[in-house]
Structures are given as C-alpha cells and as structure tokens.
C-alpha cells in the first residue's frame, strides 16, 4: 500500500445486506478498495490472497477466532496483523463490540488512518441493527394485528358484540391483566381452539 493510496479493506460478513450497507458507506467516504467475503470456507487463504490492510468482521461470526490466528508467528502468515485495539482507547473498542463489529489491521498502519474506517463501520452497523429492529417490530405488529382481528371475530360471534365492543373488551382485559392486547387475543384463539 502506498502511503497516500486508499487502504484495501476486506469485510467478512455472512449478512449480504449489512455488508452492502457498510461497503456503500466506505465507498462514499472515499475508500475504494473494498472486498466482501461471505463464504467462510478457507477464509485465511482468501484473505492472504487479497492481502488487505484492514479486515472488518461481524461478531456473530464464529470465524472471528480464525482471524486471531493471524497474530501468530507462523510460516503461513505473510504480514503481521493486529487487532485494532489501543490500551488507551477503551471507548473505541467498547463502541465497536456494542455495535457488533471488530477490526484487524496490518501492523504499522497508522491509527489515525484506521479510526475513521472503524467509526464509519460502527455507525453503519448500528444503523443496520436499528433497521433490523424496526423490521422485526413491524413484522410482529402485523402478526399481532392478524391475531387481534381473529380474536375480535370470535368475540363478536360468541358474545354478540360489535367490532368496537370486541376491541374494547380485549383492550380492557389486557390493561387489567397487564398484558399486551396481542397476548390476550392469542389466548382467546388458543382457548377457542381447545373448546372446539
């Protein structure tokens, strides 16, 4: 790597969406040499073939332990690699573990060149987690909605209620029992299934 050229970055991530989000962010920030590895088989030899300056890996990936081998002095290792940690910079490693990502760098790469990459990585990982969370919540809201509609239908039929009365009954029961409406609705479905 030339002193001024863009460092070569490898992203090791089995999630194609998250890797794409990260890759896009890195390119926008002017890091042009970005390669994504999603296949964990023969990970080390692929990394050695690419010969990157920085390796980013998600923490849900068991292959993180494989990367730790790069610290070892061994014939297979061409360039010494270190984990991007700094005894004086606990906040930065805490932030990266919280976000779920870890960085490994080639020995000698200056800290101030790695820091913006890691910061960007942390913010993109956090953005992805938020997106995932919203998606999960939207999914479960949709599920709840379906269950509540079916429970309302059962109450309307069995108790001769209007739709609004059925909903009020579900909501007041949920409040009294300190549960979610979805849970009450689910127990109505279960009970009606059992009593069939």
């Amino acid at each position, binding site marked *: 790597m030339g002193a001024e050229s863009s460092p070569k970055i490898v992203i090791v991530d089995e999630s194609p969406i998250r890797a794409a989000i990260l890759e896009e962010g890195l390119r926008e920030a002017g890091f042009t040499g970005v390669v994504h590895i999603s296949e964990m088989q023969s990970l080390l030899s692929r990394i050695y073939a690419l010969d990157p300056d920085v390796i980013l890996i998600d*923490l849900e990936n068991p292959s*993180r332990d*494989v990367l*730790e*081998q790069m610290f070892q*002095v*061994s*014939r297979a290792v061409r360039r010494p690699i270190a*984990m991007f940690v700094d005894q004086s910079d606990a906040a930065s490693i805490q932030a990266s573990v919280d976000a779920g990502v870890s960085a490994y760098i080639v020995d000698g790469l200056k800290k101030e060149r790695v820091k913006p990459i890691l910061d960007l990585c942390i913010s993109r990982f956090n953005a992805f987690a938020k997106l995932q969370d919203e998606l999960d919540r939207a999914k479960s809201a949709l599920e709840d909605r379906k269950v509540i509609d079916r429970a309302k239908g059962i109450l309307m039929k069995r108790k001769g209620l209007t739709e609004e009365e059925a909903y009020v009954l579900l909501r007041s029961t949920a409040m009294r029992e300190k549960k979610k409406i979805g849970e009450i609705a689910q127990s109505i479905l279960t009970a009606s299934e059992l009593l069939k």
Partner: protein
Amino acid sequence: MTRSLRIGFIPLVDAAALIVAVDKGFAAEEGLDITLLREVSWSNVRDKLNLGLFDAAHLLAPVAIASSLGLGHVKVPIVAPFNLALNGNAITVSPALHAAIMSELSGDPLDPMATALALSRVVAARRKKGAEPLIFGMTFPFSTHNYQLRFWMAAGGVDPDEDVRLVVLPPPYMVDSLANGHVDAFCVGAPWNSVAVDHGVGHILHFVADILVRAAEKVLAVRQDWSEKNADILAALVRALARAAEFVEEPQHRAEAARILALPERIGIDAEVIQRTLDGRLKVSPDGTMRESNRYLLVGREGVARPDPVQAAWLYAQMVRWGQASISPDALHTAKSVFRPALYDAALGQSGEPADAARAVGAFAGPAFDADDIAGHLAAFRIGRWKP
C-alpha cells in the same frame, strides 16, 4: 439481596457445571440471578469479559493466562477461582489418515508415542511423494487443543510448524471441514468428536487423557479487579459451581444433567451424546467400536474444581515452547497467579491443600513437569520455537 450476573459461555459439554448451577437453581439458592449468554467465538468471550459486558465467563484456561500476560491482545488481568473441567478433548482423524497411521503403526494404537511415530512416518512418506502437508484443525491459538496436538506430534518427531499445518477452526465447522477434506484431523472438545464419528467421517484416535493425565481445560474467569470488588458474590458463585460440579458427576444425576445441557439455548445437541461424554463412553469408530475411560472428562471429582497453579505453569511453558510468549520469571509468576486456589478455598471454607491432591500433569513424553524450572523442562524437548 439478589445480585444479577451476566456470564458468557461457549456451547460445549465442559460448561456443564456452569449451566447446571444456573438451570438447577443452585445459583439462585446462593442469591445469584445469573443470565447465561451463549457466544460464538472465544475472541468474543474474551473481549466481552475484558470490557465488563460479562461479569464472568466459561473460558479456555490458556486465554485467561494470555489475557493476563497481554499476549495477542489487550492486557487485562484475569483470575480463575474455579476450574470447570480437566481433559475432555480428543484427537479425531479422517478415515484416510486413520488408515495411513494404522498401516505405519507398530505398537498399541492407544499409546500416543506409537501413533506419533506412525504419524511422522506418514508425514515423511507424503513429503517424498510431494503431497501437500497434512492439515490439523484446532480451536484457538491460545488453546489447550493447540498445545495438546503439538505436544503429541512433536514427541514423534513431527514439527507442528514445519511438517504439517495447524489451523484455527470454529468447533461447529470442524465436522464439515473433516468431511469435505479441508482438514485431515482435529483436536476439539465434546461433542464434536462424537458428532464426526456418528456421521462416519472420523475416527477418534486419542482422548487427551492419553497424552496428559491431568490437563486444565476450561476455567470460570473473572477480571481481577472485579474479583476484588465482589468477593462475596464470587464466593457465592464458586459454591454454586462446586455443588453443580458434584451433581454432574453423580451417576444417578447424569441423565438429568444431560437433559439440561441439551436444551436448545444451552448446548443444543442430543442429550444422549452429552451423556456419553459425561460417562466417558465414546463411539470411536464409525464401525461402532466403543471406548470407555473414566478420565475422558473430569468435572467435579479428583479435586478438579480447585484451580492448580502447576497447570497454569504448564500452559505457560507451552506458550514459551511454541514462541507465543517469552520466558521470564515475572511472566511465569503472572501465569501461575491466574489460577487462584485461595479464592476457591475461601468460598468453600476450607484451608490449605486437600490431602488427596494429585497434581501431576502426567505427560506421556519428556521428564516430569517442574513448574519452577520452565527452561530446564523445555530443554528436554528437541522440537520447539523458543531460544533459551
């Protein structure tokens, strides 16, 4: 007052005492509300423990020592007040490598010197043919598996850095890698050796107990500063673990322990395989051959739970032998003081060394281990990466 603790673990059978202490309610009876957090890599367990995201962790004994010495990573002093397991690993080889070793074998296949010498003849024959070096999988650079494989093959004259290749593989990938030929053999803990045999893709060549009579495997690890600030909580945790370790070893409780460990959010594999491991009764060949050893995995017997600084010294000596650590009296002292029998004794209200402490590492090759003379001990081994 109930105290909440977050404890990380890797889904392996040697986490038995920790998992049973929580799920059987022993920890709750000590006033501890423990959340167990399953992790996918030792690097994650180490980092989360070091950063304080975990209060304690099920940890590879050498990782606790490496962390205290600042090897390969940030230096964070770790202490181990409880030894979760001795032994428990095995070396499994592909059917092809098994056949090759057996055809070169002279002597007892359970004798690790005989198999190591046979391996060296297999390696020499491959080199002559121009074949690629054999690849051995292990779990982590600072792992018992790494040192056990190295100790074994080097005794037969195989240089683990020159004659073969040792690669780190996450345990859940070991069996697939053996099946598709990415590795020729591996050393790993339970249940993965049994899984390979059950799938017909591997033969268990050795239990680690063949190589070392007593080998510290996993410890309950906490940060040293945490242990000083939370002495009462740590003592309560040690008592809960001690009870669980004894429970696991009672033959009448084995089936229950295996059921607890088999739960999807714990180890998540078949209870029958776990029980075979606890019983030390393993299928070693796809043809159904069984082997039994009461030394396969030791959890709560023979004084296993009390951390033994001699074991820590042996692990440090391996780090020196293979070029991971430099040799110094200070480093040896640091390594030894990771293992804290005093914390164990204080928690259980006992004092001094138990009378029946069997402390020998009991390696099959080389002189008896001397924890006070690492250089002298290592001088007896021809193959190694260290310079006196």
